[in-house]
């Protein structure tokens, strides 16, 4: 899946551009995101384009989360579609990830000026 990155006040915003994150592309995304997951990175994944995520996609996001946590960084999600949110709630991952409704809220949670 393609994505773009931009840095706002020290926070890296990763915008995922695909509509689907499932078993067909989860592994590849995980690999592609490695350079972004620098030690101590402050990350926001903007998920507004995503319409469908399955448990494999969720697994990829969890992997990213664990990686940044282990190096002292953080990963927050934002702009999640209702259908995607439903999956997160079903497997209770809304309790593991910090999820914000907008990009601005996510940035503010890092103390960044918007």
């Amino acid at each position: 899946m393609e994505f773009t990155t931009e840095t706002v006040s020290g926070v890296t915003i990763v915008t995922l551009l695909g509509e689907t994150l499932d078993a067909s592309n989860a592994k590849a995304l995980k690999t592609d995101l490695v350079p972004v997951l620098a030690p101590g990175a402050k990350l926001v994944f903007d998920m507004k384009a995503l319409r469908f995520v399955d448990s494999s996609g969720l697994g990829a996001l969890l992997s990213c989360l664990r990686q940044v946590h282990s190096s002292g960084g953080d990963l927050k999600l934002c702009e999640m579609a209702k259908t995607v949110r439903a999956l997160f709630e079903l497997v209770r991952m809304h309790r593991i990830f910090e999820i914000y409704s907008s990009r601005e809220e996510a940035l503010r949670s890092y103390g960044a000026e918007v």
Partner: protein
Amino acid sequence: MEPAESRTTNHQTEPQVFPPALLELIEFFHQRLAGEPFGSSLRVTAGVLVPGSSLPAGAVPVDLAAGHQAWVCLSALTSDSWAAGALQALARGWGEVYSASGREVLLMEELAVDWESLQALYDLSADLQSALKPEEMLKRILGRAISNDPSLRAVLLVQHNGVLSARAMQNLDVCENLNPAGGLVGRCVSEQRSLVLQGQHQIAAAGTNSEPTSREPWNGATSLALVPITTAARGLFGLLAVWRYDQALGFDSYFVRLLEALGQQAALIVESDRLNRTLLESERLRQEIFIGSLIQQLLLVGAPPKESARLEVATLALPSQTVDGDFVDLFAHPDGTLDVLIGDVMGKGIPAALLGAATKTHILRALAEKALEMPSGETPSPEDIINCASAAIGPDLVTLERFVTLCYARIDPAARRVTLVDCGHPSALQYRARTGEVLPLRGDGLPLGVLLSERYRQIEAELEPGDLLLLYSDGVTEAHNAQRELYGEERLTATLRMCSGLGAAGLLDRIRTRVLAFCGDEKLGDDFTCLALKIRADGAEPASEITILSSYTDLEQMRTWAAATLGSEAPSELCDEIRLALTEAVVNIIRHGYREEPGHPIRIRAGHHARSLVFYVEDWAGEWDMATIPQPSFEGDLEGGFGVFIVRSIFEDVVLTRSEDGSNVLQLSKSRKL
């Protein structure tokens, strides 16, 4: 099928052209040239060249059987030098191939007559079935004629190019060629009866005076039996002579009868040998591009009508090492029905292939003839067509001692019905999407050419959207592995059930791979011909099932299908849940069942229940159980394991069963809440 206007046949002036007729000629040219720069603008026209008439402008002559000639031209393209060259080359190729093939057909016919007379005359000995060389067999026949008595001499003379020459000898070293009109030989030939002579003087005096008898090998013999051998097809075939010098013992009439029978046997061996040589020669010809394309194009219509709103059609033909008589054809009618024909001629070789072509032609003619008798716009029934074709070709088949099995089916997508006539062919198989069953469509007709009085009757079956019909030749079910185990109808049925959701072409592709995998290194012994038809769902009714292959990239296709199945009225939350749960179920099958090996089928079928939503997810991954997948962690420390949990959270009822044919069926149900 090319458009009807590209075919011009003139039934009034057309002589009896035994296969292939003009239609085949056109097809041959059309198929060879169709893909070339002409595109769909190509029009091939052909007609019989009546003696004395001139060739139409731009046409090339083509030789047909028995001195008949036809012409072929490409309309509006004759100025193109490339086209003219191609036309010339094809005409030469056709002529060469056709004349060789025509000779064989005649030869087969001759031999069939000989066989009949021979069987009545003499019970064929085991020698004939042995793999001995013909010269060796002839020598044995002569050995039997003299009962291995060293005082007897024997010679078999065969007429060839106007002289009689020795094909086999016993107790004789040399035999000159003889004139069939002179000496004792001439008398025997002209009187057409066996001669038995005794005493040197009588033998010397018996010959005709037109030529001295000194060259005859039995010169000076004391007893002589001379038997002419004639065959129905060739007239005088040759002579069999037995004689002795030392004793005055004569030959009795019983001995002469034995010689007559042995002579017939010898004739059969020589004719079979001649036939074999011709077949060998054609084997060489077959390597050439023209015969290859002739057989293929004559017997298998290249591209079926691919795009039809209601029908999906695919054909598959894998030729075996030898040329067989499998054939397939499709006729689309203006009323939207489609006729499909699949058949198999008993036996192999170019004669069988040409008989297949002839049968196809006869059926096409029967269709045209019967259609003329019908009120306009109506199509004759399959049983009328087959009965008419059977009346036309049956006597020929009986004469040739060949028979043809075939299945003629008419698919009416609007009436959702298939009507078929089964002439001793392997049963067509129908996959019913609604129930997931496979049913054979079996008639009870005999093969064409078995019984002239046979009346063929059609059978009918209902067709529903999503249903598949599979017609095949016995080369499919009789393909075998190294242990001589047959692929069989049961395996074919299982494959059809398994791959029904792949569509017509996808199904045939799977059948091909599965049969070839089953056979291993064994070569296909027989032509392998299949035709599959799928009844497309109407726009209003989504297909009740889908088959995808074990690849994650197929997931999206499955989700699109699931959304269509649920319909636009379904609440979007429900739709999202079902799509998610089905994705999880299928991913588990791919990951844990098929271990991410690509290319295995997974079928998802929606059940029809008023109060609940039911989906069946079927795989053929062998025995594996979802229960072995570890439980998920909700603390975020594990990345996987949510799949089963998700499936169970969304569907209230999850049941895994193993079906009779070894598949795993995961039944997922959820009650409908309003």
